């Protein structure tokens, strides 16, 4: 077993455990702490996949911005931020659906042609050049969607709407 495989197995284990922990703990602030670890863990997986640009983006956008936004959401909607959530059970139907999804995805993976190769790495400069040339339309689309949704968000929270 190579060093990369060991590293990946550890990171994958941490990812699943932190994702489950984030959704099951009853203190919402602990949820945010777990999800921050989850985001950093995924960034490490991206570095393992030789995608350094995405790893840094994941650290900046997810571990940085999204975590703080979610924390802000909890902060402004509760009187005491460390108060506990009421316990909600999982229920058999959602668990069955989730297990079914997992089994379906893993079964679909078996159908893929397996190529034994080493990951291809792209320099951040190559990726950024592509983002401004061949893949430019995606970035433009992202800009338009961001602008529209920010307008929508401002409309939702503006004063005196009721």
């Amino acid at each position, binding site marked *: 077993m190579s060093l990369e495989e060991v590293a990946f197995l550890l990171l994958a284990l941490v990812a699943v455990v932190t994702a489950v922990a984030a959704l099951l703990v009853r203190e919402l602030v602990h949820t945010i702490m777990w999800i921050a670890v989850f985001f950093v863990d995924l960034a490490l997986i991206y570095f393992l996949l030789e995608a350094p640009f995405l790893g840094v983006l994941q650290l900046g956008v997810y571990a940085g911005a999204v975590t703080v936004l979610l924390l802000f*959401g909890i902060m402004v909607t509760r009187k005491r931020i460390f108060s506990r959530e009421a316990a909600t059970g999982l229920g058999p139907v959602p668990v069955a659906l989730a297990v079914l999804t997992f089994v379906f995805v893993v079964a679909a993976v078996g159908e893929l042609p397996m190529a034994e190769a080493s990951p291809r790495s792209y320099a951040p400069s190559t990726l950024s050049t592509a983002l401004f040339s061949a*893949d430019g339309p995606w970035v433009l689309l992202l800009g338009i969607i961001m602008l529209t*949704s920010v307008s929508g968000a401002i409309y939702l929270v503006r004063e005196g709407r009721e």
Partner: protein
Amino acid sequence: MSGISEVGFLGLSGALLAVGLLGVLTRRNFVLILVAIEIAMNAAILNFVYFAAYAPTAAGLSGQAIAVVLVGFAATEVAVGLAIVLALNRARGSINVAEATELRL
């Protein structure tokens, strides 16, 4: 560097999708539902990054470009979700989705 098995990455992606789905279906707090959606979204982005790295040609670069765009989408979605959280909290004094029944017939 030797390749890590496909089953590992796609299995991790599938597991994260399942966890996210479970969270969306069972949690009642809007912020927790947002967290669950983010977990499922990260599963999708992981797929794009994985297939970009192991694509047979340099076309995999587009996979990374789409992953960059998806990270932006996810951040936008959290911003809109948070606006809904604030509006819901102002209107009902609670962000429990079981209590938001205005649109019910």
